[in-house]
């Protein structure tokens, strides 16, 4: 079946604008994760959904970042009033269930550039 997909693959925006990044997990995967990867670093956890609810949003850097998963499948990461420091690759991953017991699969990422 299809893997995790993310759109857009690239997004260039201006400082202060609002952006939405979309993640479509593997069908049947109840757990969904968002990460941010800066150049030369490993991915950093942002938020974890189990079903429709955010089980852990402790990695969101501030209140400009928000994510939803209204029907327990597709998720959208929303960033308000973007800043140049938000530039990074945003990765989404999904797993059958909690990742303590399940393998996690990643999408190709969205490269966000804030000018």
């Amino acid at each position: 079946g299809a893997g995790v997909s993310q759109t857009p693959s690239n997004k260039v925006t201006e400082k202060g604008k609002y952006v939405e990044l979309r993640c479509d997990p593997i069908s049947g995967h109840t757990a969904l994760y968002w990460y941010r990867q800066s150049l030369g670093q490993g991915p950093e956890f942002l938020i974890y959904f189990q079903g429709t609810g955010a089980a852990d949003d402790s990695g969101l850097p501030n209140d400009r970042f928000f994510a939803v998963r209204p029907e327990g499948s597709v998720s959208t990461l929303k960033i308000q009033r973007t800043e140049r420091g938000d530039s990074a690759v945003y990765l989404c991953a999904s797993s059958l269930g909690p990742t303590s017991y399940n393998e996690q699969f990643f999408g190709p990422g969205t490269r966000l550039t804030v000018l």
Partner: protein
Amino acid sequence: GIQVEQSPPDLILQEGANSTLRCNFSDSVNNLQWFHQNPWGQLINLFYIPSGTKQNGRLSATTVATERYSLLYISSSQTTDSGVYFCAGVNRDDKIIFGKGTRLHILP
């Protein structure tokens, strides 16, 4: 939270050489995965290995959970093995923590 340390940070090898990448974690993890990030940024699953040894072609991995480390072995390296290798551990809160990666460059 747990810390995940990978070594070496960088590795340059001639094609055909073997290599061992190491991942140490500061506390017990429920799970461990190895990934290869290709030049296009895609994270490719290599091993899901909370404990024991697994092999897949030229690659194998061993996790010794009681001693808090995992090893990734690459034999007969090929140029397509180049990229960044990440290990990631899962803590008690189901949060996956990545190391900073090992950058592998295989010379033809």
